[in-house]
């Protein structure tokens, strides 16, 4: 197909509809970083499949120019997985909220990890359900008070990063919307990783979360990228480290250099995407009848 390849793209080339997020919402940081990375990697918007769930964060699929799929709550990963398998040429990005990914979508998340499907999954983690006006999400701390938990939640918070590591993830990172340059680095590495890449992004909800604010995060995060000693390739050490921290680790947390992507494992001819096949009825298939004779 004849496409005009621009020499180098810039973030403007990925501009979608005007975001309707609250001013100051952390998700702006994700959007901006993503546009920058896609431009840096010079990926044609038409070759991007951006798949989102439901939530404030998931609206990002309208704000970035790409082939967008805005599906149902919690099921973006199955959709994204299949898109990648049917067309490995595409850059497939899944993006959604912490409710979307760690509550209703938790099972799909860990099964996508198991499959090590070569997509990037961005979770905009704000400890609340933004779109439904501020109920506690699974990452809200024990005791967090919201309209649905007036006495404070009575459930321990889950950490997507730890779960991903325990489930055998090959790429795990965490960013912070208040640090876009780091996000750019993390997204870039995630997009280039040959396997499933989780980037959990601490992305404050300025409207419904008055506890986990930008300032609160600044005080409570520990940027592992700044630690020259830190070795992100040893799963056990990594897990030990982050389980013992009293702060929230950010940065490139873990990366398995030997990762093999699912699409290559599954497809007989990954270079000829099934999605692009010119379908016709193949007469030779008639031979398969022999087994029934």
């Amino acid at each position, binding site marked *: 197909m004849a496409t005009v390849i621009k020499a180098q793209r810039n973030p403007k080339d990925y501009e979608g509809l005007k975001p309707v997020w609250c001013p100051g919402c952390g998700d702006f940081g994700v959007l901006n970083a993503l546009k920058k990375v896609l431009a840096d990697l010079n990926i044609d918007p038409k070759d991007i499949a951006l798949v989102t769930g439901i939530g404030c964060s998931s609206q990002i699929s309208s704000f970035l120019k790409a082939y967008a799929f805005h599906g149902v709550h919690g099921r973006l990963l199955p959709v994204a997985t299949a898109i990648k398998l049917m067309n490995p040429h595409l850059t497939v990005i899944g993006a959604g909220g912490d409710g979307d990914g760690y509550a209703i979508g938790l099972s799909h998340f860990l099964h996508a990890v198991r499959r090590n499907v070569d997509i990037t999954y961005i979770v905009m983690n704000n400890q609340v359900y933004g779109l439904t006006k501020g109920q506690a999400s699974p990452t809200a701390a024990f005791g967090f008070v919201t309209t649905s938990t007036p006495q404070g939640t009575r459930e321990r918070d889950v950490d997507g990063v730890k779960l991903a590591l325990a489930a055998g993830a090959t790429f795990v990172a965490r960013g912070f919307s208040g640090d876009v340059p780091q996000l750019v680095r993390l997204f870039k590495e995630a997009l280039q990783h040959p396997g499933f890449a989780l980037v959990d992004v601490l992305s404050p909800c300025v409207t419904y979360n008055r506890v986990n604010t930008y300032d609160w995060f600044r005080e409570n995060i520990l940027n592992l990228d700044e630690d020259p000693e830190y070795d992100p390739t040893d799963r056990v050490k990594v897990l030990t480290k982050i389980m013992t921290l009293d702060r929230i680790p950010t940065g490139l947390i873990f990366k398995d250099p030997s990762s093999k992507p699912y699409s290559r494992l599954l497809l007989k001819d990954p270079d000829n995407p*099934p999605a692009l096949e010119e379908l016709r009825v193949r007469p030779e298939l008639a031979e398969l009848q022999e087994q029934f004779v």
Partner: protein
Amino acid sequence: MSEVRVNDLSVRIGGQAGDGSLTTGDLLAKALKRMGLWVIALKDFPSRIRGGHTNYTIRAKDAPIWGPGNALDFLLAFDMESVEIHSGEIQPGGVVIYDNSRGEQVPDSLHAKGVHYLGVPLSNIARSELGLELMKNTVALGVLAELLSLDDTIFHDILASTYGRKGPTVVEKNKRAFDLGRRQAAQAPKPPYRITGNGENPKRLLITGDEAIGYGALAAGCRFLAAYPITPATDILEWMAKYLPKYNGVVIQAEDELAAINMAIGAAHAGARAMTSTSGPGFSLMTEAMALAGMVEVPVVIVDCQRPGPSTGLPTKTEQGDLNHAIFGAHGDFPRIVLSPANAEEAFYLIAEAFNLAERFQCPVIFLTEQLVAMSKQTIPPLDLSRITIDRGKLVREPVQNNEEWPFRRFAITEEGISPRPIPSVPGGMFIAKGSEHLESGAYSESPKNRTLMTLKRMRKLERAKEAVPPPVLTGDPTARVGIIGFGGTYGPILEAMEMLAKEGITTKYLRLRTLWPFPAEEIRRFVQESEIVFVVEQNATGQLRGLVERCVGPQEKVESLLKFDGQPFKPLEIATRIDALLVGPERVPARANRARR
């Protein structure tokens, strides 16, 4: 009934699950098919692995058959429980062959009139002469062959091909077992049967509906299946897992049915033909995503192999109780198409058409079948792949010209309701596939006017689809006073019931719905109008199809429900008798006056 019965034979093999009766049954079915007969092999197995009674019924006839017969001719019983359960179904002249290795005897109370009981020490022979108890199956096969005077050759051939990969010793042993069986039965009186076949063996197939669905989908270009194991749909997953990868396709055993259907939707969105297959409980789990497919106009094929519900129900039995859900399930209004095949042969061609309809109308297509069709092995003529066509509808694979505009108007409001569908990577075609209400571009919109127009656009597709979907098939005498309406696997039993009724001078006609939605209202109306009495035959408790018929014609005294919901397929006689019972006088006309108003 002592005349010789020719070429219609029902043999049941009963025992404990794991006893090996399935293998025996398969061998017998194959042999009969190779003789040129039409064979159906019905599994009736418990939903557990061991320790449950299981049975396998092989029926062979010199004409096409798609369901069980009215009675059994032979029962091969590996234990007394089998004799107990099935003895009553054997018709006079038939034979019960039972294993009497441990001195078992059939109690007098079970003896049925005119049935011959033949004890053979099957396990003993297998153990002592062949050193392996499981070989009792092949011994039994020999007994059967002898009683029916069947030729050795076909059996020896089949044993050779079946056990070939286990080495020549195993083959030889099996042949010996077969011969031992023959010898055991040589003295027994021959029952009144003649099985000849027509000599021809036109390469007919012995295939299940599940296999036919997998095969048909592959032939139609399906490149993606995501499914979660569930009886009676698992065989689709397993067949495709074997063959789809060879054609650069992918089969994923998903973590659940929610994932499975969302995967299929993703694959279809990407541009591949995609499918998911399941049964009741999984189908219910797919409800939300079915609505998503309706809203984002993604062509996805959903196969539901029905089993008795609700909930876990009877996982290994048959029913047609998901019809309402297929048509009315899920929140909100959206277009969908529901198809249902009569048997494995039609399943092959119809599933291929399902992909065409899905892509032409850009909506979910539900392919409704049932355990009887899905899991029974049926004899069908060779499949003709040239009958399959591929129509991808308004799929856009070429760059969209002059389109720097973004988003592309993927949901353009057209007269027919169908809009161009570019797939990811097509230049100029980028759009937002949105599950919320949207503008033509896919951008979110709450405008009341747009909402109305978009809803109408989507629903208009169904109007168009009405002309494209397979119309009902009318069988029998169009002028008959007695009408029958049905869908799916009641096909075989209904046809045979019609034959039985015809023999008693009752002519009938039969309207079989291949498309359940959009509902063929006009055809139904005409059919009911032109009949004096109409039987809606279906396998569920509430008359779901009848409810649809009533939407078209209202409740009418002349419309009768003929229901069965015990997990077993209809027998022809059951249908014939219940129809017969409502006809009176020498003319066999509907006994309107006798019937109470519902």
